[in-house]
């Protein structure tokens, strides 16, 4: 388990040490409070009625019988939810996704909601609501939805990115192109051309904690929401908007979060829970069942991707093309201007230094739930297609696939296929690390094979605030607004301790509710430690300014004569020989008399979170008679910029890789011809269990991000990107079949083997 700091020259006192996380004891004793662990006095139970049809007009909803049931306190349909979005199309789509407006657009789409005194009554009430549907033709497959005869789901969506603007609505709502150079010329000059089409099925983030909240709205227009979320500030904004509440009057408190991975960056039941509470004038607790989580939260896209690569005999890739078709459910992707296929088109060839490259992303709506981000959203599918094709190209060229990648890898100064010029980056080093890793020399037996693949993710900054408050005993509270999804409180405490020069144990990090801090963007895009860390660095430096001033006051010397060193104010040695250093604790103890509480604060929009690359090695064994595949050995090599807490960086790498492994082998949404989801549960939506995986070896490289004081890059997402192709390449090397359909489940592999035998 290695951590290679040889690329950076920085010396740190506490950064990089493996301290204990501050929320650990609560979590191992069951004391930590998650979304469903909170209760409000007098609360009602909120439950949802959901469409059993993939696509249907809602002709009538009769709630009379349900309303008469004793114990039912409120029923909500779209009639109770006026459109207050004021032209904000994206907010309106969220409103419609939370509660159907005239049409059910997917199996599981909420059509009504009920608040009652207990679960039994709420369930009974749902049965008493009569909904008359007119079933409409549906489409759930991305390629089928692009056919001219496909049912058009939204009459108001016209393809953006086509000139002239189309006059007919389409399920293809966006076409985006990226690239540079001349691929026609590139392919014409190529000695070898390889092309292939791939398909990946829809997956879900699979967090173990379902969505849950307790909503309480008062008659004076104030409200409180306790909720499991990655972004309580974002939730506050959208809930207030949809309900017509003043933002500052809605206080949102984030519970501990039981996994999110992007799926808890959007609201699903929360606005409706608030609406129920407002109507019933009582708190409402709403918790999604596991089935609801699968049917009606935000899975990731399913895709269909064409890749074409051209190379000269010496192994230079001189032309690269990809067409990527992604379905994001019944609504547009949540980032305006950057829907799912567009992101995939940006990431496709990011690992490679290419003279001629073109990627085209087609974003499509289908009758499925509205997609949310899932850890490096859109990148894993594109990487599966590209990295599989790179191996095919290597085969054609008779060049070692690792060497082919090393030869063509992006480096500092490369123009990325999606636009910017790279600064110092880690793809080259991770590939070299693969080459030198002992995993590459382990022996393989019959039906066993080794594959490798690389991957990329952008990482993001975003709006961030943080406070540092110093207590009179010298211990420090760090307050941030980014939800802790993986242990960032430990890293943020380390950063504060490092800046202030005090022991880690004297710092306590705390996630504020929305009333206690300025707006913080959601924890996503691997920005938690990067952005809040940045804000803490500057808040700490501001606090140090105050500490210097107080020391100067206590000593009656000019503040210019005071420096801060190793947790102490130090007077200029030449001018003030007799003054001994004052520790932070001593200055804090005196603070009531020197000017009051000592604090630092920062509001910023840190940018340049630094791109992150990873390369993975995987050994598999395939049972040629059944297609069953076992992971024998797995190594994750990733550039973290600077690992604040190496153990937690390892944890992110391993967790992301495990999700990629599940995605590669067994996870998929299975839809019937009726457009209904057939496997909305953990029995048949198969995430890896403990016995499915070996130990996951990791190696952290540190190529510092020049835009961060410590060199930090985002780390949480990148390692979900390589596994699909690493495993596909390993299977190819094990039993000779090239898989082009994810997941590579036993029936698919056996079918491919039999086709190969027959051919």
């Amino acid at each position, binding site marked *: 388990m290695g951590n290679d700091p040889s690329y950076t020259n920085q010396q740190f006192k506490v950064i990089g040490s493996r301290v204990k996380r501050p929320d650990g004891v609560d979590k191992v004793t069951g004391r930590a409070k998650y979304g469903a662990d909170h209760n409000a006095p007098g609360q009602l139970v909120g439950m949802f009625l959901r469409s059993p049809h993939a696509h249907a007009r809602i002709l009538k909803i009769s709630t009379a019988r349900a309303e008469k049931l004793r114990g039912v306190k409120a029923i909500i349909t779209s009639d109770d939810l006026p459109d207050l979005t004021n032209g904000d199309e994206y907010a309106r789509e969220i409103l419609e996704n939370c509660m159907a407006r005239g049409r059910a657009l997917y199996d599981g789409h909420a059509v009504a909601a009920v608040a009652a005194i207990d679960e039994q009554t709420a369930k009974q009430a749902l049965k008493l609501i009569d909904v008359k549907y007119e079933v409409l033709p549906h489409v759930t497959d991305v390629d089928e939805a692009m056919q001219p005869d496909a049912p058009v789901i939204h009459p108001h969506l016209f393809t953006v990115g086509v000139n002239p603007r189309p006059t007919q609505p389409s399920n293809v709502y966006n076409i985006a192109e990226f690239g540079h150079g001349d691929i026609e010329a590139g392919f014409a000059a190529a000695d070898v051309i390889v092309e292939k089409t791939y398909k990946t099925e829809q997956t879900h983030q699979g967090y*173990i*904690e379902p969505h849950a909240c307790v909503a309480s709205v008062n008659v004076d227009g104030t409200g409180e929401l306790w909720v499991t979320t990655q972004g309580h500030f974002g939730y506050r904004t959208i809930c207030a908007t949809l309900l017509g509440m003043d933002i500052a009057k809605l206080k949102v408190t984030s519970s501990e979060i039981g996994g999110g991975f992007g799926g808890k960056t959007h609201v699903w039941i929360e606005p409706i829970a608030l609406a129920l509470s407002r109507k019933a004038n009582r708190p409402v607790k709403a918790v999604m069942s596991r089935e609801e989580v699968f049917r009606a939260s935000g899975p990731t896209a399913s895709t269909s991707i064409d890749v074409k690569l051209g190379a000269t005999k010496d192994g230079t890739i001189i032309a690269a093309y990809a067409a990527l078709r992604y379905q994001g459910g019944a609504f547009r992707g949540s980032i305006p201007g950057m829907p799912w296929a567009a992101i995939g088109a940006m990431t496709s060839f990011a690992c490679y230094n290419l003279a001629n490259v073109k990627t085209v992303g087609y974003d499509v709506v289908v009758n499925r739930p509205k997609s949310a981000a899932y850890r490096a959203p859109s990148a894993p599918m594109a990487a599966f297609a590209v990295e599989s094709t790179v191996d095919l190209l290597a085969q054609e060229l008779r060049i070692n696939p690792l060497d082919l990648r090393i030869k063509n890898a992006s480096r500092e100064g490369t123009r990325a296929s999606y636009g910017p010029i790279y600064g110092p980056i880690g793809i080259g080093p991770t590939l070299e690390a693969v080459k030198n890793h002992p995993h590459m020399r382990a022996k393989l037996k019959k039906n066993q094979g080794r594959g490798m693949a690389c991957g990329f993710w952008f990482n993001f900054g975003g709006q961030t605030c943080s406070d540092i408050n110093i207590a009179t005993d010298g211990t420090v509270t760090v307050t941030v607004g980014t939800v802790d999804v993986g242990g960032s409180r430990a890293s943020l405490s380390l950063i504060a301790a490092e800046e202030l020069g005090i022991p880690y144990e004297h710092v306590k990090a705390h996630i504020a509710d929305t009333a206690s801090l300025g707006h913080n963007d959601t924890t996503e895009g691997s920005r938690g430690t990067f952005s809040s860390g940045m804000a803490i660095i500057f808040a700490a430096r501001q606090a140090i300014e105050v500490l210097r001033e107080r020391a100067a006051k206590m000593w009656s010397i000019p503040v210019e004569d005071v420096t801060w060193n190793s947790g102490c104010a130090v007077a200029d040695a030449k001018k003030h020989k007799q003054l001994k250093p004052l520790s932070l604790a001593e200055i804090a103890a005196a603070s009531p008399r020197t000017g009051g509480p000592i604090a630092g604060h920062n509001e910023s929009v840190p940018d340049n979170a630094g791109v992150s690359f990873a390369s993975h090695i995987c050994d598999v064994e395939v049972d040629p008679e059944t297609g069953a595949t076992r992971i024998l050995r797995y190594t994750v090599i990733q550039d973290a910029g600077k690992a604040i807490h190496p153990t937690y960086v390892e944890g992110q790498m391993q967790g992301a890789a495990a999700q990629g492994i599940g995605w590669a082998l067994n996870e998929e949404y299975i839809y019937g011809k009726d457009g209904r989801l057939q496997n909305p549960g*953990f029995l048949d939506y198969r995430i*890896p269990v403990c016995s499915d995986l070996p130990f996951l070896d990791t190696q952290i490289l540190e190529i510092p991000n020049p835009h961060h004081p410590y060199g930090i890059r985002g780390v949480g997402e990148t390692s979900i990107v390589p596994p699909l192709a690493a495993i596909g390449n390993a299977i190819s090397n094990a039993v000779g079949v090239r898989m082009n359909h994810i997941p590579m489940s036993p029936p698919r592999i056996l079918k491919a083997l039999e086709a190969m035998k027959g051919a």
Partner: protein
Amino acid sequence: MAAVLVSTTINGDATEFSCPANESLLSVLRNRLGLTGAKEGCSTGDCGACSVTLDGRIVCSCLVLGAEVEGREINTIEGMAADSDLHPLQANFIEHAALQCGICTPGFLMAAKALLDRNPDPSETEIRYALAGNLCRCTGYDKIVRAVQATAKQLRQLEKKKSRRKKA
């Protein structure tokens, strides 16, 4: 719905509750007894986040009715730490970073304890299969298995010391 009145023992304490006949033990623990350490991840026995022990055996409390625990002994995560100290498993989970979001952790700790109680020297494979009923989405299980291995080793060493002292 007929209600049942149940007398049982939870974490060593005599406990009484009344619930509808069809209410699960998980729901009783969380909603009637304030013991929210056991989590509801799926309600169908597929994730193990609700794991408790019933008469010493690890079970999914979502698959046990409140009515069924009359006269039985239940142990939950809230009872795992002895007095003022953590159980070695709990301490090692923190030490080895065997948790990230922590939602699956109570269930894993109960299942791991049940394993080590019946098999103090499990192989890696035995550990993995004993924990296969507990889903984790954050860690990839690597550090969880290591934490259990470290605890097993520690507990075996403690046992050895104890028995040496007895003989002496």
